[in-house]
């Protein structure tokens, strides 16, 4: 038994096994050693895990490349030697996630024939044998609820957009609208997991973690994968969103998303406490580094090395994060574009602006969550609020990226976890209706590096209920995103539970060629 440098026990020099004592005592001694060792390590592991979720730099751990001599180990995962598989169109991605399930037929999936079918029963043939959620399966009838808002054609592409989205209307020629995204899950939790990780059960890495693992960091001063949550609007129907959606699953925890808080310090405990200046901090870190290095030499655990660099990362983030979140130097044109709402931390508009700033600073994958799209009831009142909160910000982000020349190599994705039903959940009146979850088709869009601008892909039936042409299941959607980033989704794999796991799962997935530029 080697002595741990932090261990003050004196019994290490004793060769207990050789002592003339009963065997039971020896075993008890061994058990105590194990437990002590376990408890001692467990405490540190907790701390490490916490640090790992704070930082996300890829260059922290490498089993194969760990060297004691370098304080900033240049570590690359085996994947990063092989990726990108081909020259990527996009270096980075921004994923605007509309949690709750936006109603496609009120926004982008124009269904003119519905207006004449107001309050008629939806034909059984449309629904087929589909099982509904418990929220509307007991309804006596399924009355068709046409959209409350008019649609108009916009842009050169002549894309139909609801009047609820005046800003989105202006950028349709930049968008790749997918009307036929479809999922296998009808409830939020499995659906949002499927969308993010390619699997309905939790425990799998999400898209951002796969990208960090596969492509690595572009800027060692910032995490590779960052998550921004938008503040809740209490009148909306908000579904829970938590770190399971940006977890690294079975990949090393350093690939997990790092969340910035929407209020107060963006990252907790990042500022130096009063009385500790940068020099003191540096000296302290150097001392910790020395001790950690000693530990590494004693035990040879590569995680120790990764911790050394996690501390360094946190040290660098002490200057890079305040710079990232300091909006004082943004010109007036920024506020004219995003609106003054963007000045309030935590709003969706603020997060979109942050996403642009992260793109500039080389964050590989930024995910912005906007909750509240779960419009089971009171849709005519809630949807305008939701659209007003997001429409301009989305437009501002795309326009901003475009005029700064960043849209060429940034992929922007807008999607929820599913769509909503054409029939009204609950009562239908001229001024009120609601829509239940609908997995069979929902509308998403992408724009930027790698995708074809100004097209609408796929067709749904007259009820926006079934896919008629060119379905895009979630796995194909994710395969296409990876393709834009230069990754063959079949080649970005990790062995776990006896399987070469991948983002697109075991059902064969295809890159949707029709979406590509």
């Amino acid at each position: 038994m080697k002595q741990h440098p932090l261990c003050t026990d004196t019994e290490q020099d004793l060769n207990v096994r050789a002592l003339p004592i009963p065997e039971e005592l020896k075993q008890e001694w061994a058990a105590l050693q194990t437990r002590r060792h376990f408890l001692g390590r467990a405490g540190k592991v907790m701390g490490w895990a916490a640090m790992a979720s704070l930082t996300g730099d890829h260059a922290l751990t490498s089993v194969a490349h760990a060297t004691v001599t370098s304080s900033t180990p240049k570590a690359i995962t085996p994947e990063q030697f092989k990726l990108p598989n081909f020259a990527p169109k996009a270096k980075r991605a921004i994923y605007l996630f509309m949690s709750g399930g936006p109603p496609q037929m009120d926004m982008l999936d124009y269904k003119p024939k519905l207006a004449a079918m107001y309050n008629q029963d939806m034909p059984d043939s449309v629904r087929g044998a589909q099982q509904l959620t418990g929220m509307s399966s007991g309804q006596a009838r399924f009355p068709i609820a046409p959209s409350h808002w008019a649609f108009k054609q916009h842009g050169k592409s002549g894309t139909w957009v609801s009047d609820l989205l005046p800003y989105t209307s202006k950028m349709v020629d930049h968008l790749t609208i997918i009307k036929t995204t479809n999922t296998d899950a009808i409830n939020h939790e499995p659906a949002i997991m499927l969308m993010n990780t390619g699997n309905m059960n939790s425990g799998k890495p999400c898209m951002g973690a796969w990208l960090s693992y596969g492509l690595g960091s572009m800027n060692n001063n910032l995490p590779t994968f960052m998550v921004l949550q938008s503040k809740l609007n209490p009148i909306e129907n908000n579904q829970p969103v938590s770190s399971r959606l940006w977890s690294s699953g079975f990949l090393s925890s350093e690939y997990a998303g790092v969340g910035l808080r929407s209020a107060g310090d963006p990252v907790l405990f990042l500022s130096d406490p009063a009385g500790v200046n940068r020099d003191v901090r540096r000296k302290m870190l150097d001392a910790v580094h020395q001790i950690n290095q000693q530990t590494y030499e004693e035990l040879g655990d590569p995680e120790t090395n990764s911790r050394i660099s996690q501390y360094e990362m946190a040290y660098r983030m002490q200057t890079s994060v305040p710079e990232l979140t300091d909006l004082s130097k943004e010109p007036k044109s920024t506020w004219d574009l995003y609106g003054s709402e963007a000045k309030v931390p935590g709003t969706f508009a603020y997060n979109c602006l942050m996403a642009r700033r992260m793109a500039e600073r080389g964050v590989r994958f930024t995910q912005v969550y906007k909750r509240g799209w779960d419009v089971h009831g009171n849709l005519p009142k809630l949807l305008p609020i939701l659209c007003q909160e997001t429409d301009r910000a989305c437009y501002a982000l795309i326009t901003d990226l475009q005029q700064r020349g960043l849209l060429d190599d940034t992929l922007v994705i807008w999607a929820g976890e599913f769509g909503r039903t054409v029939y009204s959940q609950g009562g239908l009146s001229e001024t009120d209706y609601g829509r239940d979850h609908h997995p069979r088709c929902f509308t998403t869009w992408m724009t930027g590096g790698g995708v074809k601008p100004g097209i609408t892909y796929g067709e749904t039936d007259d009820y926006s209920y079934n896919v008629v042409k060119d379905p895009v299941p979630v796995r194909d959607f994710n395969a296409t995103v990876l393709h834009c980033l230069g990754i063959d989704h079949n080649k970005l794999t990790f062995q776990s539970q006896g399987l070469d796991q991948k983002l697109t799962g075991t059902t064969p997935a295809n890159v949707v060629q029709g979406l590509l530029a």
Partner: protein
Amino acid sequence: MSVIDSKLLPKSPATRTAWVMALMFSVALLLLPHIFKLDGKPHANWQQFIGRFHPLIIHLPIGFILLVPLLEVGGRWKPSLRESASLVLGLGFISSLGAMTLGYLLAYGSGDSGAGVTRHMWGGIALTIGVLLCLLVRPLWASGAAPRLYPALLGCVLLVLSWAAHQGGSLTHGSNYLTESMPPLLKRWTRLGSSPAKAPVSGSFYAQHINPIFDSNCVVCHGENKVDGGLRLDSYESLMEGGKDGTVIAAGAPDKSLLLTRVTLPKGHKKFMPSEGKPPLKPEQIEWIRAWVQQGASSTATSLAGITIDEHKDVPLLPVGDYSALMPEIEAMDSGTGAKLVQVSNKASDGLILRTIDVGKKFGDAQLAQFAKFAPYIVEVELARTGVTDAGFDTLSKFTHLRVLHLEDTAVTGNSLTKLIPLSQLTYLNLSGTKVTKAALAPLETIKGLHSIYLYDTPAQHAPITDAAPPIERKTL
């Protein structure tokens, strides 16, 4: 007969029988195509199944036959080699016969026809007969009775072999396979590869956009050399004429046009075209064909309503050399300047990116100059928010393979932009947040492929986009 020396004539009854049998066999081979005609109709599936092993087996006789002259010549110094030549020649005959049979089954079974197929077939038959003759003549040569006949025959066999093999290669890869990537100089010298313009009405939509689709995807099997299904797509006339299933283009009715039906079947369908795992047509190509058929399938119309094709052609990319040998040096740059050279992809030919994003202002002109030695491999330089100034353009002008250049928020003034003119590969230049003026940009117009110049927040830019949208209108139900 009188010209042939009597000692050449077969003497023993055994050799005579061999000659007679060989003669009958050759006649049978020559008659084969007249009995089982290659009429362009597919026959039994089993024939195709076996026949498809032809491209695999074919390399066996080629190997054997090429080995024979080596053994014969080598035998001059090492007689034991010559002893095995006869065996190898025999193997060459047996394998040629097998390969020829498979090839015939392939063509007959799948209904291949066309000039190329016919040429290849006769080549195969001639070769098999030639090898058989070699086999018969060789003993005469070995005994010294006819010292010239065998070498001459073997020479002929080799010529026939090369010709037939080339015909076969043209069938599978297309007749321009060898010349396509030939260096221009060599092309001019050999006068090859420049397919004479048989274009119908140049400038028509058909000539510019439709014919090229068939050219690159279909004519390997539906062209001059191979006419599968009796259909040729290499000219407007033959396209409109159709094949054994009738016309394939119904002008004005895309849904009734067999060609469109076949290319839009679900992938994996037996009748899907292009067949046998060749890449399918791209969606926009199908869209163009559909629109072209819809609007009358004209050979002369120059444009189609609703179809705009981006005529913008990028300057052909200069290939980037292989930097793999420099990897240790490339990785060492990281620790020196803090900036990194990153691979665009795992293919070395995609080049390197110079990434300075986490160094910031500490990365200046001197640091940039250190990367000049990797200039031929660098296709993208990210200098946004670095300390690079106008002096850095001296280094940048050496980056001859540069395609993308980021200079956002740097101190460059634009006075040195002329130094970028030699960078013929440049397509993207981002000068946002610099002091560059419109006048300074003028010289850049000489870079043909430079289609994306970003000037956000510069004196050269018009006002940024900030406009507001109209209020939401509500519809009453």
